[in-house]
């Protein structure tokens, strides 16, 4: 082995080990969540391969939970896609925040990096990037360790999901519990709390009056728009 090749190998293993050190708690945390997601997928009549394909191709925890719940509810494809698009809109902002630290990075690395941007990997990478001594290779390693941990957990959950009877252990409540957890992390300020409450009230009202799942998108847009109006008025009054 030439010196340069050996150096390159050591360098790559260093990136991988540093990436793993940064992301392993998230990988562990993904196991129960991924298994819960896989079980829900199985209850929605998805096969383990379909769940694995979804995890490998979409890799978005909340987006996948939502897609699976809407598939099981018999929602139309455009409605599911629109909801996944909206729930993952935040990834646009996350990746644009990461971009500040990715100047002069090749398009290939940017593509690889973008493949694994989710809430958790973003949180790890942005913290490391802000501190310095962190680059695209380590960030990509973080993303892909989390990616494979998630995919494997969901596949396992779906594979063994058929052995878990319907409604047992309250596993069907895992989806609601997961959404509540994600919601709490989103409420960074009174304005977001208010808009979420408005959204919930409008959603309950619309769910009783509208057919299908269209109430999800409609109530979200109404509440977020009201949030913009409230914020603008608050800023105006403060001036």
């Amino acid at each position, binding site marked *: 082995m030439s010196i340069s090749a050996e150096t390159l190998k050591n360098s790559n293993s260093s990136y991988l080990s540093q990436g793993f050190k940064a992301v392993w708690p998230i990988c562990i*945390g993904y196991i*129960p*969540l991924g298994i*819960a997601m896989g079980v829900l997928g199985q209850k929605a009549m998805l096969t383990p391969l*379909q769940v694995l*394909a*979804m995890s490998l*191709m*979409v890799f*978005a925890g909340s*987006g996948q939970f*939502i*897609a699976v719940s809407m*598939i099981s509810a018999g929602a139309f494809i455009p409605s*599911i*896609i629109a909801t*996944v*698009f*909206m*729930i993952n*809109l*935040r*990834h*646009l*902002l*996350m*990746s*644009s*925040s*990461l*971009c500040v630290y990715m100047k002069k990075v090749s398009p290939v690395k*940017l*593509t690889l990096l*973008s*493949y694994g*941007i989710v809430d958790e990997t973003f949180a790890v990478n942005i913290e490391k990037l802000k501190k310095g001594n962190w680059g695209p290779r380590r960030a990509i390693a973080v993303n892909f360790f989390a990616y494979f941990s998630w995919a494997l957990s969901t596949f396992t959950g779906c594979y063994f999901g058929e052995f878990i009877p319907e409604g047992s*252990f*309250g596993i069907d*409540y*895992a989806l*609601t519990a*997961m959404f*509540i*957890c994600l919601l709490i992390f*989103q409420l960074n300020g009174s*304005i977001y709390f208010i*808009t*979420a409450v408005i*959204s919930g009230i409008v*959603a*309950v009202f619309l*769910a009783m009056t509208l057919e299908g799942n269209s*109430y*999800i998108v409609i*109530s*979200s847009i109404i*509440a*977020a728009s009201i*949030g*913009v109006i409230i914020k603008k008025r608050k800023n105006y009054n403060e001036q």
Partner: protein
Amino acid sequence: MTDNLMVFITILCSAAVTYSLRLGGLLLSEKLPSSGKFKIFMDALPGTLLLSLIAPGIASSGLWGGIAAICTAVCTYRTGNVFLAMITGVGIVALSRYFC
């Protein structure tokens, strides 16, 4: 359309929209507004979506579903531990089904 084809199309389209957002943010970062109405709207959207998804379900899940929701929220807020919070919510529902 078969169920398998529908699931496949859903997965494919979900992947396409998700990656276009992730890659779009990296490629168009300088053109996205980082303040103003767009930013407020975007920040508020995930929370509103999540609550609009679960609110009708919680409203129809009865007393124990509501208690489990509150306990899950409090546990998440106090500990920041998703796994513990999920176990709390799921555990309350499981126990209520067993004993009530």
